[in-house]
């Protein structure tokens, strides 16, 4: 025994079973109460989106002009009906599909653009100047105008709405990524990879990108919420989803006209959006903490 101990080399400081990083992250995330609530909300919404036809009590675009603008908790329509007599609950349920899809598409497109720009700008000093000027340009170009132009040029469709919103996220995302690339670039393990003869592409993709993940994920989750909200603003300006598509942003914008007579037409989708934004934001916050290695001890 004594001998065994002597020859045993150092032990790892924390003797734990090997656990994947994301499992650890998830565990930590779930310990954060707000984040756990957020995850539950998101899961519920995803469930709602997937099983929309089952959960919805009515056809979301079926009109019934006679029983229109029913208040909440009416018979057969527990969230009431809109001015066309469509069931608000069914529209909210189906709207989850569209809103989440638009959000995810917008954020993913924005990430692709932003991450690419940020990565290149941060890594190559020579490109940095140009890329950052492009980013500045996108930044200082009024977002709504950009959206209007894109939609004017490409036509009104949900995909184009998503594209427009995605472009809003590019400059912010690019800056965030560039910032982390600049700091990761200084890290010794990058120097180590260079000294081992790794190519730039390998360094960027295999070593820098994974380490810039934390801010990117946080950005993405937070942006999800804003993206869904942006569809509301665009719909308000008449640029969002095409009627009769049950999209939350469009619902709230349309309901605005009935705010005084049927407030539930804005409040219900408003709450749906609020919950989503809330959920994604707290999860984003939680992720930031969970991904922070310094939080290990606490």
């Amino acid at each position, binding site marked *: 025994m*004594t001998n065994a*101990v*002597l*020859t*045993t*080399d*150092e*032990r790892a*400081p*924390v*003797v734990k079973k090997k656990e994947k990083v994301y499992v650890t992250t998830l565990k*930590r995330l779930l*310990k954060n109460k707000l984040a756990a609530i957020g995850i539950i909300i998101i899961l519920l919404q995803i469930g709602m989106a997937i099983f929309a036809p089952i959960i919805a009590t009515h056809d979301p675009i079926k009109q019934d002009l006679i029983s229109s603008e029913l208040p909440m908790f009416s018979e057969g329509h527990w969230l009431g009906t809109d001015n066309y007599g469509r069931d608000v609950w069914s529209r909210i349920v189906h709207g989850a599909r569209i809103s989440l899809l638009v959000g995810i598409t917008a954020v993913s497109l924005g990430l692709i653009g932003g991450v690419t720009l940020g990565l290149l700008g941060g890594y190559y000093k020579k490109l940095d100047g140009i890329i950052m000027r492009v980013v500045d340009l996108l930044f200082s170009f009024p977002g709504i105008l950009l959206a209007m132009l894109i939609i004017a040029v490409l036509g009104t469709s949900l995909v184009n709405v998503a594209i427009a919103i995605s472009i809003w996220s590019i400059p912010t995302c690019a800056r965030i990524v560039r910032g982390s690339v600049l700091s990761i670039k200084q890290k010794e393990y990058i120097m180590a990879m260079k000294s081992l003869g790794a190519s730039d592409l390998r360094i960027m993709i295999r070593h820098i990108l994974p380490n810039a993940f934390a801010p990117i994920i946080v950005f993405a989750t937070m942006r999800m919420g804003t993206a869904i909200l942006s569809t509301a603003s665009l719909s308000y300006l008449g640029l969002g989803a095409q009627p009769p598509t049950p999209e939350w942003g469009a619902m709230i914008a349309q309901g605005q006209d009935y705010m005084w007579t049927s407030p539930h037409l804005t409040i219900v989708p408003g709450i749906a959006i609020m919950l989503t934004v809330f959920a994604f934001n707290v999860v984003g916050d939680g992720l930031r903490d969970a991904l922070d290695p310094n939080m290990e*001890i*606490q």
Partner: protein
Amino acid sequence: MQETLLEVNNLVTEFRTADGNVQAVRDVSFSIAKGETLCIVGESGCGKSITSLSVIGLLPSNGRIANGEVKYEGKPIHNLPYEQMRQMRGTKISMIFQEPMTALNPVLTVGYQLREPLILHHKIKKSEATKQGIELLKQVGIPYPEKRMNQYPHELSGGMRQRVMIAMALACHPGLLIADEPTTALDVTIQAQILDLINELKEKLNMGIMMVTHDMGVVAEVADRVMVMYAGKKVEEGPVAAIFDNPKHPYTIGLLNSVPNIDDPDFELEPIPGSLPSLHEQIHGCRFHPRCKFATDKCREIAPPEFTTKEEGHVVSCWLHEEVEEEVKHGHLVAQI
């Protein structure tokens, strides 16, 4: 022997963590007299900093003193209300930290940070504080002190910053100076300057100094007495000469054998195998036994108490010394010094 300044008895410091409570300091006792330098040595993570933070009452928010007492000039201070403890800090006990880069506030001028404790504790006017501040900077050997007062920390070199830290800590003539690795971040030539300075000031002000370090060279240079810690426990304590010439604990011996001797070309390194256990690890018996080549079954089962040695003030926690030395109860140690 000078009168006792600080007395720490059976200190236990605990942290709340995600995996439950852990003890970073386990039942440590020691004392410091006026004008005396006690060095705490040990590997990284063995609890040196936490011991010193416990003394000054600045533990991280998830940490607390779970047991034991800290007495300053005979009065217990570990349970003082925040406000009273605050008033002690800077005046009675002050502290300098390892990283002079991060320990100074980057957005405040050197002058402001230096004046702050003076105005706070001595209730003097700003102009008067400035005068005293300049005086302090002179004392720690900073050239052009008037100019430095208006500069920001980043405009100073590392050595300079550490001197500012020291000047700040000494501003109100504290009785006890805690120095947590004050020179680790510095170059040897600068380190030598700083160590000289601390020694000089100690003499002049008759302070007690509690110096945390892991550099045996530094210990040899400044310490009057040495306390060796391992995994949160005190394993050996004694006068500096005794520790270097007649180390008793296998860990202390291991530490000394791990440092290349610059004056002895034929010196052979003898590393201690393994590494420090984590705080979560349950270890029965002596906490050092998994790395100890002399470990016996007893070591694996029962934690060794403190044994005195023939030399006065030299105590060691190791079963190997059981036969030769007689057991001392915790706490009696202080009285003997």
